[in-house]
């Protein structure tokens, strides 16, 4: 199940491991809507195409993608800063 956690320093952590396209993108957008401006969201994914689609969808909506980082074999962490 997709889970949303409150991480350190007020940032949110969205865990969508186990989900394939297009759900990681949909849930990322939803999680971003729960953030204040300049808040940070970390998305954990394990679906390779989402490494590209999640950052692209976020920047398409005007948010700032701070990084895509591999945190384990087949697991990535995408860090997004909310804008607007």
């Amino acid at each position, binding site marked *: 199940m997709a889970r949303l956690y409150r991480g350190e320093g007020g940032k949110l952590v969205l865990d969508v491991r186990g989900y394939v396209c297009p759900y990681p993108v949909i849930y990322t957008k939803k999680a971003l809507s729960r953030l204040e401006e300049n808040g940070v969201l970390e998305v954990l994914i*394990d679906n390779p195409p989402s490494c590209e689609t999640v950052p692209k969808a976020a920047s398409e909506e005007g948010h700032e993608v701070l990084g895509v980082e591999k945190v384990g074999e087949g697991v990535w962490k995408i860090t997004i800063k909310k804008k607007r």
Partner: protein
Amino acid sequence: MVVLATLEPEVAEKKTTRVRFTKYLQGQLSAIFSPSGWPEWLGGILLGLVNILFFAWALKPFTIYTGFLNWGQHFYAKIVGLYTFGENLVNPLFERTSVGDIGLFLGALLSALIAGEFKLRRPSRVIDYLEGAIGGLLMALGVVLALGCNWGGFFSAITALSMHGYFMFIGLIIGGALGSYYVDWRARRDLEAVELELEEAPPSLASSGRSIPRYAGLLALLAVLAALSWYMGIAPGGGKFVGILMMGLFVGVVIQRSRFCFATAFRDILRGGAEFRRSARLQVGIALGIIVGSTGVLVLKYMGYVDLDAYVKPVGWSNIVGGILFGLGMVVAGGCASGSLWKAAEGHIKLWVALLAAVLSYAPLRYFIREYAGWIYGSKISIVSSLGWAGGIVFIYATMVLWIMFVLYLDYRRGTRYG
């Protein structure tokens, strides 16, 4: 001592700048096998090229479900003891489509292992297993009606200059859009269940699946490839199948790298879903692949290298209905025919379920519908026979360019709306 002291910084500098060859190789490889993948247009063109090559080599286009038929027939005959769905079974390692499928699976696995993207991924909810099974079933039924999957009924059908590809194309556009309604519903339903926990503890990284050591995996895969090639190669006429295996491998690598997902391409294009831009890029890639592939097959057919009517299949309403069912099924399952093989190779267990459902249902569905409802199929229409050599290829170019323009227009409109 003085001399040494002056030399030392230089030596130290050299040590830090020189990289070991293996590290250098890793760097080169990880640029090609990076998480962002290859562009979709490149994937489409490469798939168009291998489509021509495969047709010339195997004397049939690159398709997928005939392999599933072979596997299903083996299951029913050898395990259940039911020979109704097929007799005189061909060894799966000497059946052209089946070998291509095995190649695709191993190619996607190879690519995923090199990129460090292989992991056993258990779906997070039970409904995913159900989606895999229902999606696989819908796809198998769609293939029976459309006379092919997204390859044999659409991509490879148009490149083989058969009209039935266009009919499934229409069905896929509708079915994909229907699928996107389902995705919306499922996402809404899931979002209600998403909890905002006020815990400090971040999710554990080790919990959601298992990966295998990359080098062990690569070595095992190469051993399997070598064993398969050897086994096929020593059989009389078996060299052909080694070539087919290699081409399937190529398709698998290209599809895994360019994330060439027909489900995404048709799901988000009409209704502008969450991954609309990717679906637009994929549609352009598919159309480019069809342009490249049909040009090559035109040459093969014109020069008489393959028969003019090779892979020309019946056309009718059943192809559209099949396309709709297949389109819906692939969106629900999360992968088309090639996508199921690729994602299963990446370790998505949901797609294993989809593959299993498709393999087990395709042979009986195909048998019963052909036996008792054969009237649903239309008659064969070859694009070249009806429009001529020049007319036929111009028709394909024109329709594909128009489709690309339409897709780009949708993208443009969306772009302006979002400022």
